[in-house]
């Protein structure tokens, strides 16, 4: 009964998820909550995020606001349950061609301006790509953010800018965030709760 209650309250609810021979993983995140996730390299953090975003075949259930994923088409699901991968991809010449609209409210808080839309992708640094990828995924107005080391190639100022933007977006829209980070200090800074991933499950820990 308690579990049912919890599931009902959750924005994201993962039940007995198995992917690539790992798991079962279960976790839930409340609306507006940020949960940090850590694990040794190779423990399957990225695979877990990919499975939640429905990019890999898997067993188990995933619910968004208590509605099963099977009720959504896959593209609908991925717009709401947004995965920001560690390395973003850009396939057009200009930055703006990757955005669904000309105007993007997230450029300025990340240190860009409207002119950025006309920049050549080939001249972006890895840090710029990472920040622009965040702006791009927020354009879908996701309900869930799955962040795979979103500040890995950023300097300190930009790390803080990204953390601030994600917090603002999360609080304004009651979005649930699952944040993979190697940095223990960052995890303590951004996370309301903290999860540790092993090959056979997830356990909560306190800092």
């Amino acid at each position, binding site marked *: 009964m308690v579990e049912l209650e919890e599931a009902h309250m959750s924005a994201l609810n993962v039940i007995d998820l198995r992917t690539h021979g790992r798991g079962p993983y279960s976790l839930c995140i409340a609306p507006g909550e940020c949960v940090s996730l850590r694990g040794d390299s190779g423990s399957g953090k990225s695979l877990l995020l990919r499975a939640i975003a*429905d*990019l890999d*075949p898997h067993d188990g259930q995933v619910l968004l606001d208590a509605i099963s994923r099977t009720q959504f088409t896959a*593209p609908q699901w991925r717009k709401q349950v947004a*995965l920001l*991968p560690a390395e973003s*991809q850009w*396939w057009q010449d200009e930055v703006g061609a990757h955005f669904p609209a000309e105007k993007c409210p997230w450029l300025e808080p990340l240190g860009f301006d409207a002119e950025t839309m006309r920049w050549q992708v080939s001249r972006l640094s890895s840090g710029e790509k990472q920040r622009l990828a965040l702006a791009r995924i927020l354009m*879908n107005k996701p309900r869930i953010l799955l962040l795979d080391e979103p500040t890995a190639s950023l300097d300190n100022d930009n790390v803080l800018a990204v953390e601030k933007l994600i917090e603002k977006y999360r609080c304004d829209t009651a979005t649930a965030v699952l944040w993979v980070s190697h940095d223990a200090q960052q995890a303590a800074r951004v996370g309301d709760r903290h999860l540790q991933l092993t090959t056979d499950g997830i356990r909560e820990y306190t800092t």
Partner: protein
Amino acid sequence: MITLSTVDLSLAAGLVLAMAALSWRMQLGLSGQLLIAGTRTVVQLLLIGLVLKALFANVDLLWVTGISLVMLLAAGREVMARQQRRFTGWWGFGMGTGAMFISSFAITVLALTTMVATDPWYDPQYAVPLLGMLLGNTMSGIALALDRLTTTAWQQRAIIEQRLMLGATRLDAIAEIRREAMRSGMMPIINSMAAAGLVSLPGMMTGQILAGSPPLEAVKYQILIMFLISAGTGFGVTAALWLASKRLFDDRHRLRLDKLTGPRS
């Protein structure tokens, strides 16, 4: 019509032998392949000559259907053999073969019943060469297009998945790659239509003229054939790419490269 004697053919064979000898001297490593291919040409063409002779002697729908199927299966095998990464299981063969069957057979039957209007419509003297030309060209187009689609999808898997993550459908995520594959499948026939008569005299027309047909009759046949080939290749490539790009994903719009085999060594 001037018939060729054994001596005439031996002279031509002598040229190939000379080329093989030159290649051997220059250590090009081609002489073996050249000789084997030359031998295959002689044997295969003599065999098909005998088959056609028998076929023409007793016109029978069953026989025509039989040889058509043999040709189709051979073309299907050829498409499969030309793929760097092909689909696993039955699909690797079935996809190209199915697409060729739909386009080549439909267009051949259409041409035989309406444009050429032979009697009976399956008269092997027309049906077999017509189908052969259509199959041969459709085969090249489909092989090129499928190979382009699967190798590009493999190389650009990260981009395709990025687009899926942003909420693109499987069709959107692979649209550009599919368009490129379509272009590479259609390019040979478009090029040969554009160059026909200026750069090259098409083989079939040349053959008819050598056999004594009036040039304008040969030209009309060649135009018909080229139009049939371009339509057949176009429909065949479209069908094959449609099947293949669906097959690269599953119904949850996930890129499933595990449905492809590893690279051919």
